[in-house]
């Protein structure tokens, strides 16, 4: 038996790429071949489009792809969360039916978890799925759904039992997003973009075979999806990079990336654009003001320390330590950085901080920072939720008494939101 050293794997993939890679092929055809050979997702099981290789070898394989400019399987968006969830909890039927078209990029997926009435308290979802003897019938509303308007499939968390406690009464479904019972509307944000959707279900149908796991497993399975969401966040930027190489397949890939990355155009501004602070202060002459200097320096220090903290968390992960609630510290730090950066940008810009669009500094970029930063401390778990996680799971402080442990039917909740 050959030992699977990095060197051996590198040579394998290099030979295979040399024999098969051609930038003039069609994207779907190429990705089908990646799925067939397992080189697209080498760490997936051999039975399911992978090669069963250890995760530790992935960087070496990716490096070989990058060296020759070979395009990989489709990765951006929700698709890999869907794939990871199905690999872990899906039936063989689900895997056979869905995994391949996830990797080829032919199917786009969306995640239907958050609702108008349940944001931080995801387990308080009230979108319902009732079995009518033939199929599950879905009614309710989801919110903050990226890509819902061009998705084929959705990962749906819905309530199937109202007499059980909240976490126990939920189930997890794969729902066809192209059916008439689903209406998708863009949701406009305070910064003017509409990057997300609201999704309305009116007697939408799910066939019984599209239940994932068992009835009542919904919460557990949703946690799998969310764990992968946190891990995938780092990779978003890397995979979203557009190649400037020549060839038919790159044109197709560019088109795909543009579509999927469109909702994330303002994300850099959401983080506060610390990189722009010093150049802006030079431009506006505010670097001479000692109080502004103090604020800038405080921000740069905070941002640098936060990078170290993130680096340390990554380092611990590389050493094989499980990713723990420490991630919440990093998220809270990022919120603090973004807010501090917005405050400094406003001070540095002076009166022109009132202006937006082409009248505003840097064609509205500064305005976009000021109007996007508030999302940082809310999206992906509010600062308050992060503080609870830090206090209860890192510092081991006592939990808040709960009022929502009985049958969900009796738990006080929000009235439905008017359309």
């Amino acid at each position, binding site marked *: 038996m050959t030992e699977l050293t990095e060197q051996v794997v590198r040579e394998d993939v290099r030979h295979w790429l040399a024999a098969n890679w051609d930038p003039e092929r069609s994207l779907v055809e190429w990705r089908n071949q990646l799925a067939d050979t397992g080189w697209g997702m080498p760490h997936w099981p051999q039975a399911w489009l992978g090669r069963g290789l250890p995760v530790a070898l992935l960087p070496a394989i990716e490096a070989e792809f990058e060296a020759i400019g070979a395009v990989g399987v489709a990765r951006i968006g929700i698709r890999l969360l869907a794939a990871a969830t199905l690999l872990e909890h899906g039936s063989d039927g689900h895997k056979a039916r869905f995994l391949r078209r996830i990797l080829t990029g032919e199917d786009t997926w969306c995640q239907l978890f958050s609702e108008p009435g349940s944001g931080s308290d995801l387990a308080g979802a009230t979108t319902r799925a009732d079995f009518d003897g033939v199929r599950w019938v879905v009614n309710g509303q989801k919110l903050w759904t990226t890509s819902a308007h061009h998705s084929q499939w959705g990962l749906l968390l819905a309530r199937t039992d109202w007499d059980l406690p909240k976490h126990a009464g939920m189930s997890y479904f794969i729902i066809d997003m192209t059916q008439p019972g689903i209406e998708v509307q863009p949701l406009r944000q305070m910064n003017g973009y509409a990057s997300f959707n609201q999704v309305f279900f009116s007697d939408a149908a799910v066939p019984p075979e599209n239940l994932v796991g068992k009835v009542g497993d919904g919460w557990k399975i949703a946690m799998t999806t969310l764990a992968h969401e946190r891990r995938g966040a780092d990779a978003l930027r890397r995979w979203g990079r557009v190649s400037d190489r020549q060839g038919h397949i790159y044109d197709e890939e560019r088109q795909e990336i543009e579509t999927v990355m469109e909702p994330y155009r303002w994300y850099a501004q959401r983080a506060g654009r610390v990189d722009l602070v*010093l150049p802006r202060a030079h431009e506006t002459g505010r*670097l001479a003001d*000692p109080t502004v*200097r*103090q604020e*800038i*320096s*405080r921000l*740069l*220090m*905070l941002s*640098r*320390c*936060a990078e*170290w*903290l993130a*680096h*340390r968390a990554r*380092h*611990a992960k590389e*050493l094989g330590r499980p990713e723990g609630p420490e991630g919440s*510290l990093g998220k*809270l*730090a990022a919120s*603090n950085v973004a807010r501090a950066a917005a405050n400094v940008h406003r001070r540095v810009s002076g009166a022109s901080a009132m202006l937006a669009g082409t009248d505003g500094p840097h064609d509205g970029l500064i305005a976009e920072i000021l109007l996007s930063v508030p999302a940082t401390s809310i999206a992906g778990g509010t600062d*308050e939720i*992060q*503080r*609870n996680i*830090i*206090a*209860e799971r*890192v*510092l*081991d*402080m*006592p*939990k*808040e*008494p709960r009022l929502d442990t009985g049958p969900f039917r009796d738990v006080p909740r929000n009235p439905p939101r008017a359309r």
Partner: protein
Amino acid sequence: MRFAFTDEQEQFRTSVRRFLRDRSPMTEVRRLMTTPKGYDPTVWQQLGQELGLAGLQVPVQFGGQGFGFGELGIALEEMGRALLCAPFFASAVFATEALLNGATESEQHALLPQIASGERIATLAWAEHDGRWETSSITLSATETRDGFVLNGTKNFVIDGHIADCIIVAGRIINSFGDDGVALFVVDAPCSGLERRLLETIDTTRKQAELTFNQVPARRLGHAGSGAAALRRTADHAAVALSCEMVGGARVLLENAVEYAGLRMQFGRPVGSFQAIKHKCADLLLDVELANAAACCAAAAIAEADPEVPALAALAKACASEAYLRAATEAIQIHGGIGFTWDQDTHLWFKRAQSSAVMLGDASYHREKYLQYVEAAV
């Protein structure tokens, strides 16, 4: 940069922590802080000779242990936790770094071994009445004589200056201007013409003295013209060391506050179950972790002789100053009324935090310094 400690470093931390738990419990801290001397000579001797802590970062050829600044940082974190009452910072950090950075090799051979073993206690007298650790603030004058120099002037905020038997003095060659005239001198104490007055301080766990020099004979250290640069390096290293100590103090304050909040019952539940308290603690943990990252990276930078040391030292000191103060302020708040009493220990760290926040320059001072380094780098 260092992002994780090695197993050896963790073992080292454990042994220092055990020693301090046994030999410097809070009862001892409370006893020693009321004595004029301020330390226990037996514990100091054990710390120097059994543990070799007094010469941790000193090269072996000068009688030290030859470890890096990383190990020194670990020892200081533990001392900051324990609020150790001993002339460690003055002797093993401030004076030792002045000698490592500013003395010639033969002077180091002559002076360092006894300091590294703890036999002699040294300190660095730098700041004067304006309370600035800058070379431009040095006015104490040095006049050359037939067999050395005589010093005239006053030094303030001299850490453990009342007990040190080897005083490194930052002086100015008489009638000189600018950095070129700044030099380091060594004075053996006690000696005629040197008057030492123990200062009344907020933080009684670390003593400070005012030293008045009246025709005090002294020897010059280092090569002519090298004093200012040596002092600046010393200040950077001392700021990083102090940051490590402060992070240790901030962390133990948070641990104690969290423990108390879990026990203290009000309104039928532990106060630690209220989000008002939990969120405060979560924010404090973030502050401590950020300051810790800064201090560790700065210490690693010194160990690796990274050119960014001056900038990172400013960053570490600013972050540690604010994190420690905030932890101390909130720790008292979380303890409530009991936290304002003399018998509860929190105020002892609070006083160390107040004092350390301004020693070697406060957070605002270091923020300005950091920005200047960043501007120079772009």
